């Protein structure tokens, strides 16, 4: 599904290398978790994959189902099946959540040469999906993320994910700012989307999110590279020993 080879990325405005030869492969139907200390390049990876400005790829490649995505505009990547759940979802005043969702869904369908969803089909679908995420009608009507609590914002991200039905979902520290109940709700939303045709890349500092979204593979990212890969037990090791122990072991 997603294949990253020797990805090297620097900041556009600064001579600062963030990713230093990252290799990663996410298969369809699998959940890969990426853990790592602050400044290891986790968020950069998610932004580079989704096409945010400000980064320069100096070497390497990233393909989604064989298609080179690094040359695509963010909206083209989205249409190709890429989705990033933001760590800090952006507030957009004056644009109703529902309007936003419908614009996004139909823009992607159009880009893929599919027919647009009718207003009534869209409404039916969004209501059903919102209900499972405990998103009420009022939240759908309100401007995108404006006045939403931290938990509401993250649930709204998952609702977008559910509506857009991407092939690859990247969750960037989705657990940040959430209490246990909110995290459970978000995790349930994500788990409901697990599917053999869909890959997940879950980026997180802490093991606790992975209690709820069980990963198949765990990677440790440090200093711009994947330094260790293992099963779910690797996340527990981080939880118990911190990153320092693992990094020392790798360096040795």
């Amino acid at each position, binding site marked *: 599904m997603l294949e990253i080879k020797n990805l090297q990325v620097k900041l556009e405005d600064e001579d600062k290398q963030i990713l230093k030869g990252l290799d990663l492969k996410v298969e369809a139907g699998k959940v890969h978790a990426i853990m790592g200390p602050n400044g290891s390049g986790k968020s950069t990876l998610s932004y580079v994959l989704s*096409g945010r400005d400000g980064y320069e790829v100096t070497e390497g490649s990233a393909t989604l189902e064989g298609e080179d995505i690094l040359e695509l505009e963010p909206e083209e990547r989205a249409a190709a099946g890429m989705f990033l759940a933001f760590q800090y979802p952006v507030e957009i005043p004056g644009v109703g959540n529902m309007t*936003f969702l419908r614009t996004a869904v139909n823009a992607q369908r159009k880009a893929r040469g599919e027919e647009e969803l009718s207003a009534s089909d869209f409404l039916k679908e969004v209501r059903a999906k919102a209900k499972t995420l405990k998103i009420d009608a009022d939240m759908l009507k309100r*401007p995108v993320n404006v006045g939403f609590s931290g938990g509401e914002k993250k649930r709204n991200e998952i609702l977008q994910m559910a509506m857009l039905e991407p092939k690859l979902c990247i969750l960037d520290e989705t657990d940040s700012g959430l209490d246990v109940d909110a995290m459970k709700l978000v995790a349930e939303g994500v788990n409901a989307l697990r599917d053999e045709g869909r890959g997940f890349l879950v980026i997180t500092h802490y093991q606790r999110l992975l209690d709820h979204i069980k990963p198949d593979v765990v990677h440790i990212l440090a200093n711009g590279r994947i330094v260790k890969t293992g099963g779910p037990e690797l996340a527990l090791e981080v939880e118990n020993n911190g990153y320092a122990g693992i990094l020392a072991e790798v360096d040795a």
Partner: protein
Amino acid sequence: MALAEAKQTATEARLSGLGLPEGGCLKAARQAALSRVQTMGLPSRRDEYWKYTRPDTLVQAEAPKAALFEADEAPMFDAFERLNIVFVDGVFDQEASDDLALEGLSIDRLEDICCKDIHWAKDLYGVLEARGQTPVERPLAALNTAFASDGVAIRVTGKVSKPINFTYVHSDENSDAILHHVIRVESGAEVTILENGPAASRFNKCMEIDVADGGKLHLVRAQGRDHKRRAATHLFARLGTESVFKSFTLTVNGVLTRNEAVIELTGDDAVAHIAGACVGDGDFHHDDTVFITHDAVNCESRQVFKKVLRNGATGVFQGKILVKEGAQKTDGYQISQSLLLDDDSQFLAKPELEIYADDVACSHGSTSGAIDEEGLFYLRSRGVPLAEATDLMTLAFLAEAVEEIEDPEIAADIVSRLEGWLARRR
């Protein structure tokens, strides 16, 4: 002090082409206004208050020609139940207007008042305009009071069931219109006034609004899409105790627009909100000049002005909050922001606060910037193409001003016009 010679000459040239209409009970007000203009002289580009907007074409004797606009969308506010009052090139059109009768208010044309010796409007016509001449002179408003050729006096005595809508039609490309309306909202009464249309090639409009204790007035106007038209408008409002005045102005196109609002909060607990959204392209020039005086306790004022400028367009904001001695617990807010869609456009802002009370909360902010990149990326990452995402972020920028409109249907109509402007520029 005698006026500078050039100013005197320009003022005389303009005034010589105008005749004072029949006076009746407004005669004294018109004459007093005439002598005010003669003393002040019409604005010139050297005046501090006209530093960012050239008044030449507003002052010159002949109105510059302005091409007529061929409508390609439904007229504004058309779907609403309303009482429609139509002016064509500044002249009342009885045929096109509704019957000027509605429960809870009375409407008289200035022409009808002029032949009466006694009329309530005598205590309002030119009165707020004259008060508004200090501390800053507004000669075009005085000229309006003296020479207004048409207009209405509306007295609101109850809760009015539907909005009063002024439709200003521009049908002659050389038209030069001067309209003056006075509105008195009596104690506890409430009304919504809508205005739309360019009115004339050159439009000088003055509206004096007196809201008595507990009265409410909502004003929403849209200034038409005829790009070559010019307009200088003045809004003078005086607010009594616990009264509410909310106004919103949409400006789409126009080579020259100067909207002045002069608001006086004279009764305790009064509320005044003045908002505006404008979108301009090319030789568009738009000026909001606002002066709010807090002269009572516990009053609230909000100024929210947003301008979207592209392709060399110019936006101006001069906004002042004056808090007089004793106007404690004043809550004053002022924000003026521009979204510059390219490097050629400019926004000139002069926010001012002058405060003589010690227990007040006043804030002001003014910014110029490009589209919010964070928001743009967010939308694009969801598959929304760049052009559409840019439009949505533009609407998001304007939202705070549009949200000042209380009625959701009116707000929806305004938003659809903004969407139309954006869509035409894709």
